[in-house]
């Protein structure tokens, strides 16, 4: 029963990683860049919820929606201002810019809201569920996080595979030039990708901080890196890959915390990544890059 508790909590943590990893993987697939500022968008989103819900007492759902709007605008703005001028530039330049944006967001947060940790009030009102005569207790946060992740995954998959905008995104990710020849506006598609990724980051931030209730300007950094690992683990560019990678990462992390060592859990997570990449360099669901003659 103990094991089941660890497992379920791991799936919940993994759901958060999966939501964040979706942002990494979609942006990578479509804009062909690693947006290392993605984790910090989560942090900004969490502050929005912190103030809207915690300080101003808005309805929790309204607070999360507000945070999604703010993050969407932030994501689109970052792409517009920092990344779009570098389209066609060497990927190293883009990467360094992304790291710069990441620090910028952290510093701005520090200036605005100071670096002392804030205690985040959970947005989940659901009571814990107790099963097997109280042997297994699942928190409301855990349930909502897992449910949100599943709903979002299904919605996103339907959107990508069954709408013309979704097909345009797939087309851009496969061959940007050919997609342009079909009349797809690549810049608009990339903006949309950043918008979706950032809105999901807002949801992930609210859920993460509800389960782990301290918020400070560096809050987004570690989950951001782990979600990036999850995206690579699952096969970067693949949406189901982000989902599976995120869940597995959360489960591995939680189980190693429980059974091996709290201090070593992160090291174990990264070791698993290294092993997977040695065996399958494209990640679990990653596609082989087609070399066209």
């Amino acid at each position, binding site marked *: 029963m103990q094991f089941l508790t660890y497992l379920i909590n791991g799936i919940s943590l993994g759901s958060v990683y999966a939501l964040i990893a979706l942002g990494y993987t979609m942006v990578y697939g479509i804009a062909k860049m690693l947006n290392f500022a993605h984790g910090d968008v989560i942090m900004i989103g969490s502050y929005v919820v912190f103030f809207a819900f915690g300080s101003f007492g808005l309805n929790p759902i309204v607070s999360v929606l507000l945070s999604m709007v703010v993050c969407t605008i932030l994501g689109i703005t970052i792409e517009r201002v920092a990344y779009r001028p570098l389209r066609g530039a060497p990927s190293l330049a883009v990467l360094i810019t992304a790291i710069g944006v990441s620090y910028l967001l952290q510093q701005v947060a520090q200036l605005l809201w100071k670096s002392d940790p804030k205690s985040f009030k959970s947005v989940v009102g659901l009571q814990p569920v107790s099963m097997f005569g109280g042997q297994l207790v699942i928190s409301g946060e855990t349930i909502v996080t897992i449910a949100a992740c599943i709903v979002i995954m299904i919605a996103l998959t339907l959107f990508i595979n069954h709408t*013309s905008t979704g*097909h*345009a995104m*797939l*087309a851009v990710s*496969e*061959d940007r*030039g*050919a*997609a*342009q*020849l*079909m*009349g*797809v*506006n*690549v810049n608009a598609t990339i903006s949309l990708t950043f918008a979706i990724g950032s809105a999901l980051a807002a949801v992930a931030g609210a859920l993460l901080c509800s389960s782990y209730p301290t918020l400070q300007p560096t809050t987004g950094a570690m989950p951001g890196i782990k979600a990036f690992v999850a995206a690579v683990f699952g096969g970067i560019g693949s949406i189901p890959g982000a989902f599976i990678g995120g869940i597995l990462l959360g489960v591995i992390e939680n189980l190693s915390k429980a059974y091996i060592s709290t201090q070593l859990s992160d090291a174990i997570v990264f070791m698993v990544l290294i092993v997977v990449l040695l065996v399958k360099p494209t990640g679990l669901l990653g596609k082989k890059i*087609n070399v*066209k*003659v």
Partner: protein
Amino acid sequence: MGEMLSVKNINVFYGSIHAIRDVSFYVNEGEIVTLIGANGAGKTTTMHAISGLLKLERGEIDYCGHVISKMEAHKIIRLGLAQVPEGRRVFSGLTVQQNLQMGAYTRKDGKEAVQNDFDMVFDLLPRLKERRNQPAGTLSGGEQQMLAIGRALMCKPKMLLLDEPSMGLSPLLVKEIFKIIRDVNRNGVTVLLVEQNAKMALEIANRAYVLETGTIKMEGEATELANNIEVRKAYLGAQ
């Protein structure tokens, strides 16, 4: 039957490489015009410049009364100027049907009209119909070429650019592809055809241009060029 496309003294660079130098040519409505030239002559570069995938350094491209050389690629296609790119470039993860649907991405004239064009394309390219639910990546080279042509036709183009549609295909398939191009043209689509296979291209074209290292070296009626000694030596394998 006026000039539909006019390319005027265009120059295109890749960094410091001057790939296209002062190239000019035109295509009249209803024609098949071919641009022939060896590997690396600058044919693809020219096609990309027309479709807006590459920007000009100097010069101008006009199409149906619009200056398209400053327009973005996704707007140029909306004027009915479609391209079948070199190497086919079908979306291998999407099915045949979805690829064709992508071709109709810019269409705003309703489901029924698009459905009519699905029927038209499947009529013209019956092999695609059999494979409509198959991922494009699983098609053979010839089928992928047909899909690339069908996909471009799905936007109801007034003019079609084809970049080496015969590349890598067996002689029999090459014949079939050229027959399709002729049919498309007979249905009222103006064609600009880029080819290394000069023999076949000159057979179906009205007029032709010879491109060599980024400049137009010769131009004229297709039959005339087919009989030209230099062309025969350089491009038709004559001794």
